[in-house]
C-alpha cells in the first residue's frame, strides 16, 4: 500500500508516495531523480548505492524508505556547495583521476566522505579499512587511496 513519506535529502524536504517498504535506493533514483547512487548488488555487499545518513556512509539498497525518513540523507549530488564547488573528496578524485568506468565511484566518494567525517587524517591502513565495504572491479583502488589521502590534506 502506498503511503506519503517525507524525506530529507540534500537539505531539502521531498514528499514521495511509495510503498514504505521500498528500499531507499529506488526512491532516490526513480522518484527523486538522484542517479548518483547506483544499484550494484541489492545486498549491502558492494557499496555502490552508498549515501550519508546523518553524516555516516551506508548502503541505501536494503533500508526501507520509511526508516530512512528518520534521518538526514546526503547523496553524491548534495556534496558540492551551493555555488557548485566540489567537496574536497570529489576534487581529489578528479585530480587523481581515480576512476575507470566510475560505476563504483558514488560509493567510494560517499564512503570516503564518511570516513573523513570521523577520521580527518587517516593513515593508508585506515583508508583501506574505511573502504572495506566497497567493491571496485576496474582496480582503481590504489588511486582512490591516494585521492583520500590528498583530500585529507586539503
Amino acid at each position, binding site marked *: 500500500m502506498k503511503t506519503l513519506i517525507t524525506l530529507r535529502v540534500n537539505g531539502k524536504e521531498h514528499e514521495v508516495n511509495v510503498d514504505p517498504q521500498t528500499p531507499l535506493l529506488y526512491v532516490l533514483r526513480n522518484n527523486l531523480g538522484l542517479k548518483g547512487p547506483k544499484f550494484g548488488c541489492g545486498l549491502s555487499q558492494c557499496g555502490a548505492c552508498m549515501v550519508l545518513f546523518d553524516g555516516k556512509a551506508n548502503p541505501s539498497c536494503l533500508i526501507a524508505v520509511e526508516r530512512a525518513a528518520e534521518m538526514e540523507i546526503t547523496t553524491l549530488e548534495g556534496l558540492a556547495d551551493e555555488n557548485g564547488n566540489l567537496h574536497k573528496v570529489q576534487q581529489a578524485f578528479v585530480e587523481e583521476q581515480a576512476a575507470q568506468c566510475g560505476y563504483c565511484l558514488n560509493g567510494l566518494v560517499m564512503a570516503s566522505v564518511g570516513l573523513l567525517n570521523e577520521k580527518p587524517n587517516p593513515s593508508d591502513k585506515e583508508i583501506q579499512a574505511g573502504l*572495506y565495504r566497497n567493491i571496485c572491479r576496474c582496480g582503481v583502488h590504489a588511486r582512490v587511496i591516494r585521492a583520500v589521502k590528498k583530500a585529507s590534506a586539503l
Partner: protein
Amino acid sequence: MKSTRRDFIKQLGFVSIGFSLLGTACMSNETGENVAESDDSNRPEDINAWLRVMEDGSILILTGKMELGQGIRIAVAQVAAEELNTSPDLVEVNLAETGVTANEGYTAGSRSIETSAMSIRNAAAAAREKLLNLASEKWGVPQSELTLENGTISGGNEKMSLYEVLEGRQLREEIGQPTEIYGKTRRKYVGQPVPRKDISQMVRGNLDYVQDLTFPGMVHARVIRPSGYTSKLGSLDDASLQNFPGFLKLVRIGSFVGVIAEEEYQAIKLSWEVNDLAQWELGDELPAGVPLKEHLKTLDAEVETEEEKGDWESAIKEAPIQHKAAYYKPYLMHAANGPSCAVAYFEDEKLQVWSHTQGVYPLRETLANLLEIPEASIHVKGVPGSGCYGHNGADDVAAEAALLAVEFPGRHVRLQWMRDEEHRWEPYGTAMIMELEAGLNSDGKIQGWKYDFWSDGHSTRPNGEPKTLLPARFLDRDHGVPGVGFKGGAVRNSKPYYAIDALQTTSHIFQGPLRKSALRALGAFGNIFAIECFMDELAHKAGKDPVEFRLDHLDDERAIACLDRIKKMTSEVTPKSREGLGYAFARYKNSASYFAVAAHVHLNDKGIVKVKKMWGVIDSGETINPDGLKNQTEGGMIQAASWALREEVQFDKEHVTSRDWHTYPIFRFEEIPEVEVEVIDRVEEKPLGAGEAAQGPSAAAVVNAVFDATGERIRDLPVNPVEKYLR
C-alpha cells in the same frame, strides 16, 4: 544541419522518439547537445564518417567504439584535438551507434587505439589540410600565412570558425594520406596526461550510464531465471498476478519468462513472486562433485598443432636438465560492479535499444535475426555501463529487453539484472589446463620446448546467430546453443615470445560445462600465466636469476628494455622472512604492448598470500595518454592479482553457486597492493593495444613471488581458495 530538427531533438533531451520521425537515425550525446544528422552514405574512407564540424564551434568525433572505462573518449578526443590544434575541451565524442558511427565491430582485443583512434587521427589531419586549403582559396591568402587554432582559422585580415569556412557543410572528401601527423611532430595534447572529462561528471553524479536512462512513461522489467542452463518451464499458475501492485504484463515465450511493472521495486517483487510460482524441469546436470580439472581432461577435444619448429622431441629428451609442470586456471567471471542493463522501445515495427554492448552493429544484426525484424528497423545506441572487461551480460540483457519491449509496445522498457543474475548467468572466462615440458642445455638455455593446453573457445559474442544470446536458449523456437566459439582466443600467447629453436605447441579445444565468452586477455591470461611460471621454474633449475634467464632468451630490444627497467625499479627491495619477489614478462598477442612486472608478496601464518606491492613497466609504442595508460595498467595488475589469489566460479549439479560477492570474493581495499607503473613512450613507433597486457604477467609474478617466499610452487589457481580462510 537543419536547426529545426536539432531544436526538436534538444527539447526531448535524451532522444526518445521513434527514429522514423527523423529519417534513418538520430544522434545526440548524453546531454542532447551537438545533434547532427546521420548520413547513409557514410563511408569510413571519408572524413565525415569520423569528424563533424559543429555550428557551436565544437568538433564532434564519431567513434565506432564504446567507452568501457578504458578512457577511449579522451584518447580519441586528444588525437583529434592534436591534428586540429584545438583544445580537447572543444571536442565532443559520439560513441558507437548504428547508422551514425562507422561499423567498427566490437570494442575488444585492445584494438581501439590501433584502429579507431588512428582512423580519427588521419581524418582529423586530413580535415585540417582541407580546411586550410578552403580558407586559403576563399580569402586568396597563401596557406603558409594561415593558422588553425581552437576551431578558428585566421590569417591575412581574415578570421572564421571552421563551421563558417565550411558554410555549414561537412567534409565528405576522402581521408587519403595526410602529409603531416601533428601527433608525431608536435604532441601538444597527444602524449600528455589530459584528464578525462567524464570523471568530473562522475564525481558530481552527472554522467548518465545506461542504468540511469529515464524516459517519459518508462516501465521496469525483470526476468525470471530457470534452475539451470537447459531447464524447461513446467507449470506457471499466473492467475494471482493481476492484482499485484504495479503489474502490467507477464511475458512468457517458451521457457523465457519476464515481468513488466510500473515501478522498479514492483517489478523486482513481482519477479520474486513469479519465481516462487514457476516450476522448472532441470535438464542436464553440471559435473559437480568431480574436481573440474579432472573432468575437463575427460571431455572430447579437438587437437591441433599450433606451432612446430625443429626436433623438439629429441631436444627435450637429450637435454641434461629436463623439467615439466602442469598449471590450471578455473572459470573466472567478469563480475561487473553494475549488473547488466538495457532499455528498449518498440513501436510501429521499429525497435530502439540503448545498450552497453561492445558491438552495436553485431548486436543489431543478431537482434534482427532473433526477433525477425529487419536490421534497418533497429537502432542500437551505445551508452556506457559498468566496466565489463570483456563480453558479459550486456548483449543478453539487451536481447531480453528487446523481447519484452516487442511484447509491450509504445513504452520504454528498462531491464536491469539483479546481482545473482549477473554472477550466475554471464558467460565466464573459461577454465584452462596448461602443461609444459622443456629441456635445458648445459649453459642453462632452453633447447627444446613443448606446450599443451586444454581450453574451451574464448568468445561467443553475438555474430548474427541468435543462439549467442542467453534468452534464445529458452524461447519456444529452438535456436540451438553456442558451440566452442572463437578458438583463436585460446591460442593467444600460447607461443612463447622467447627465442627457442625447437618447440611444439598443441591446443586441445573442448566444450566445457559452463557458458563462456571473452574475458579480458582471453586465453593469453592462462597461457602467459603458465609460460611465465614455467620460465621461473626453469630459471631455478638452471640456477639463474629469473630476469637474467628471460633476458638470455630474448632478442627484442623493447622487451629487454622493459625487463631492465623492472629490475632497476625493484633493485632496493629485500624481501623479509615469509616474503618473496617474483617477476614476469610478456608481449600481449606477441604483437601488442610489452609488459614486465614484479610482485612483492607476504604470507601470513595461515599461509594466505597477500600482495604488498607491484611494479609494472609498459611499452605501448606511441603513448596517447600516459595517465590513461597507467590507469589501465594499474587496474589490470590489481584485477589479475585478484583473479590469481581469490577467484573461482563454483557450481553444483544444478547451476552456478557463485551468486554474490560473498560466494565469489574479489579483492577488497584491505587486500590492495601498492602499485607503481612506468611507461616507456616511443613516439616514433605505432601505438599498441594496452588494456589487456597486464593480465597474464601479473598473475605469474604473484605466483613466482610465492615460490620466492616459500620454495613451494603453486600451479593451480586461485592461490588463496576460500577454504584457506576457514582454517
